[in-house]
């Protein structure tokens, strides 16, 4: 509420200065995406998945609470659900490492994907992380390969895969759960190669330039849609999903249901090849007209 009032006030003031406005809007979205009252994966599971059975553990060495997953029914179909879990209270956030997954979390995702593939269940993922956990144990436990192998596991699935970005989509840690047939993104979610603060610290040599970096990175849904990075923007209630979580969940539901219905028309092999082709086309380059 406060945020949107503030937004309205600023909208009027900054009408003529488009640059600053874009910077402001982008930064505002970054703030909403990080709002601690924003519904998390757990809330969307509660709203969208019936008969959810959580399945814990990577079957190797740990149960990373930053990634939750399990089985349940979405719109009458049995599905596998996997998502980053941030938590809201400080206790929850600590338990879930603020949604920053360790290798164990990504490996949990992998083994759930394998379960989905074996029993031909569609996969739904929810992406909401500042990034992979940057710790010594995580690094030495194979963070890099865990992310890579999770992406490869998603790429290889022949079942329908729908990813929904619901908050922060931070770097490889987010992408690891988003190699999907359809990538949906809530209006106020972000998706970026690096955090605005991290980018500012490197390129501006000062993290204070985070709003500038955010603007430059174009991490919002409306900016990413034309680039093909995402396939659909899911509108949120005025002020953001936390203002009316039920309404937000209904819109997420409808977008996922539509995507699944489309994907179920395809043959398993077609789905896999189409997913590969989707990612193959991502990127912008020139020189095609030149002699090879």
């Amino acid at each position, binding site marked *: 509420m406060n945020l949107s009032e503030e937004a309205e006030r600023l909208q009027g003031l900054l009408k003529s200065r488009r640059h600053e406005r874009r910077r402001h809007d982008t930064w505002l979205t970054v703030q909403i995406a990080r709002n601690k009252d924003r519904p998390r994966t757990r809330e969307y599971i509660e709203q969208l998945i019936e008969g959810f059975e959580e399945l814990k553990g990577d079957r190797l060495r740990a149960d990373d609470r930053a990634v939750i997953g399990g089985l349940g029914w979405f719109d009458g179909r049995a599905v596998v659900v996997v998502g980053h879990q941030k938590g809201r209270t400080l206790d929850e956030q600590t338990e879930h490492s603020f949604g920053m997954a360790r290798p164990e979390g990504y490996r949990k995702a992998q083994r759930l994907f394998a379960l989905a593939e074996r029993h031909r269940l569609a996969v739904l993922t929810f992406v909401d992380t500042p*990034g*992979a*956990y*940057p*710790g*010594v144990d*995580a*690094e*030495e436990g*194979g*963070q*890099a*390969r865990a*992310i*890579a*192998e999770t*992406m*490869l596991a998603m*790429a*290889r699935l022949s079942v329908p895969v729908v990813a929904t970005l619901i908050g922060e989509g931070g*770097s*490889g840690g987010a*992408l690891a759960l*988003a*190699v999907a047939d359809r990538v949906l993104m809530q209006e106020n979610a972000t*998706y*970026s*190669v*690096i955090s605005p603060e*991290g*980018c500012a610290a*490197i*390129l*501006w040599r000062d993290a204070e330039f985070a709003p*500038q*970096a955010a603007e*430059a*990175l*174009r*991490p919002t849904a409306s900016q*990413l849609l034309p*680039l093909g*990075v995402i396939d659909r923007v899911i509108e949120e209630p005025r002020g953001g999903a936390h203002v009316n979580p039920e309404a937000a969940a209904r819109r997420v539901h409808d977008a996922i249901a539509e995507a699944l219905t489309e994907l179920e028309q395809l043959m398993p092999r077609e789905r896999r090849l189409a*997913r*590969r082709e989707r*990612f*193959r086309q*991502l*990127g*912008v*380059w*020139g*020189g*095609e007209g*030149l*002699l*090879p």
Partner: protein
Amino acid sequence: MTVTVEIARRGTAPAPRRWVCPKCASEHDPAVVKENLSVCPACGYHQRIGARERIVQLADEGTFVEYWSHLRTLDPLDFVDLEPYPERVREAQGASGLTEALVAGPAAIGGTPCVLAVMDFGFMGGSMGSVVGEKLWRAAAVAADEGRPLVAVASSGGARMQEGALSLMQMAKTTCAVDVLNDARVPFVAVMADPCTGGVVASFVSLADICVAEPGALLYFSGPRVIAQTTREQLPDDFGGAERNLALGHVDAVVPRAELKDKVANYLRLLKGGGQPDGLERRRSSRSRSSRTRRLARATSARVAAAFKNPGREPVGGSGTAPGSPEEPAP
């Protein structure tokens, strides 16, 4: 080399530039260091090398042909930090003599035809943007198509910030490229050279059939600075080092540069299921079983021959220089 010594003796010409090892501080003739594959003759310190020097070291002489150098980096985000992105690219191109941070094309290593893709840390920190991703995809696609192994030498700080989420997507894209290779059962060998971090090590590189690292190479996803800032953890002294990564099970072997070509050649022969290097008879007979392989070999030779006639596609040599890296020996 001899010439240098004579000049030094005469004492009239300016003293030759000396190369000082950043690890052991010993001084060496740059030409000697270069001859030694840019490895310190005293302590074995592996200096960073550019893509062209790497290709000269790895590929059989005259076999590498650069492909896809016509692909141009664009600025899809109109990215401006302290400097516009296109200017940064132009500077990198001028300094390195490369068009992008990855140089790729067909080659042969130890007699085995392959596709070679080499990153250059000197080009914007070897960062991966759309063109790097697209080149890697094409390298993998050609490899899969022609049944030639892919050899990638990675040296990169990660994804390129200036292309935003599109750079991030190159992680997924190059991962899908590995999927293409796997589907075709085509071998993929990755060499991790210093440094190999961020989005590159967390995508195609780590998915290779065989991942080897050069001695002393730094390999990690999140670096010491990020770890220190976020979790304030104490880092082990050798955090991210190749040798530590070997003990941690993340690389198959740490291979000194002097052995690298032979090892890679051996890996390729082994993964292709071919015969022993000295068992030529056997190899030939196994080859004759596969007419497809024979056809490919012929097609490849034809392509390489054609390339030699095309000035835009000449086999390359020379070395790129990584800014910020220790002084490069003169060629």
